[in-house]
């Protein structure tokens, strides 16, 4: 075998190996952690459904019918999770909050809208995307997706780079610009009443809605959903369980998602 031919075979072999290995390596690279990104539900080439995927349906009409309910949901969440109130927009931390239609769905451009839409209190919170850009961006895996489809955070590991905040297309993330356990000028603590069952956060980390993982673990439903139980304004559950209430609601009602065009596959569904 002359040396040219040997070299050629070597190169051909290496190329073949690279060709076989590269796509899988590339996939691993894009996915990061195996559970950081599962195949999106629906759309082109839906993957087999495995495990749980928690989701929430927000029936906006019911919030209009029950004035004050939306705010009660917010208060319940923020009390349970020791979310501070700094009293200004700059430092603001929120896990769930009340917005108006044009801010939750800025992509929609109806020529004329029902008047009722203007006053409608629409709850906004983390969408627990099936394909979360924040998880892709985080350089330390401080934010990650659990097996249940919840986009969660480990505050111990967060370095406070705020890459996830730039990556989040739903404005769902807040940063602790200052010590949340501190007091304002009048000596009032930013966290009015501490819930002894749940930790607070420290300065310099990002935080967000955790779909009440800590409550789900002990058989409770999320705090906001609990407040809205009577009215069924919020329906929460495992969307992969065909018998669950949320599966029924999703099958029988037309729902919309926030900015679905960007491929994040939110787990929040709105009935307007």
């Amino acid at each position, binding site marked *: 075998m002359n040396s040219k031919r040997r070299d050629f075979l070597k190169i051909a072999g290496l190329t073949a190996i690279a060709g076989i290995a590269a796509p899988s390596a590339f996939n691993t690279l894009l996915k990061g952690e195996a559970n950081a990104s599962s195949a999106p539900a629906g759309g082109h080439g839906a993957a087999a459904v495995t495990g749980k995927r928690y989701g929430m349906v927000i029936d906006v009409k019911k919030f209009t019918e029950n004035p004050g309910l939306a705010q009660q949901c917010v208060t319940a969440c923020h009390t349970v999770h*020791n979310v501070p109130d700094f009293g200004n927009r700059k430092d603001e931390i929120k896990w769930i909050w009340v917005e108006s239609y044009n801010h939750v769905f800025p992509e929609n451009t109806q020529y004329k809208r029902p008047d009722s839409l203007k006053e409608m209190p629409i709850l906004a919170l983390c969408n627990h995307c099936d394909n979360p850009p924040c998880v892709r961006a985080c350089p330390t895996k401080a934010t*990650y997706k*659990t*097996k*249940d489809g919840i986009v*969660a955070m*480990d*505050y*111990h590991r967060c370095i406070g780079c705020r890459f996830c905040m730039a990556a989040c297309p739903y404005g769902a993330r807040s940063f602790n610009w200052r010590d949340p*356990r501190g007091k304002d000028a009048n000596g009032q603590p930013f966290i009015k009443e*501490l*819930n*002894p*069952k*749940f*930790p*607070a*956060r*420290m*300065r310099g980390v990002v935080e967000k809605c955790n779909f009440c*993982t800590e409550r789900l*673990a*002990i058989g409770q439903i999320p705090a906001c959903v609990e407040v809205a139980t009577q009215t069924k304004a919020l329906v929460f559950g495992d969307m992969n369980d065909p018998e669950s209430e949320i599966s029924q609601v999703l099958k029988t009602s037309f729902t919309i998602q926030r900015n679905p065009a960007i491929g994040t596959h939110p787990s929040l569904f709105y009935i307007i």
Partner: protein
Amino acid sequence: MYGKGRIIPALILFLGLMTAPMWFKSGDVSKLPKPEKPKDYTECVAPTQFMRTAHMQLLNEWRDDILREGGSRTGKTANGTEYVRSLQNGCMKCHSDKKKFCDDCHNYASVKPYCWDCHLQPKEAM
């Protein structure tokens, strides 16, 4: 030796400063930390010696297991007593006095863990 006049006194000064705590008897054997153990409970989640050296690793393992792997929030001791795998809701249930238990050793060893920046200690949560 070149520069002997300066090097040797400087060396002596350096050694003197380094060993000063010994000359001035800083530190005292009788002042060893004696963390106060809970009175109503006799058994911890692991043997005392293990907890003394590895409680921080254990806490980290609990955290990563529960948060990331969906691990159980409860565990069982050697004698079968159930406990909550949580610093705030587990450990502090028995070791309810942070000052007398945690701080006693941590101050002695001069380690300042940031646990309490976020986690609430029993008293202030009341």
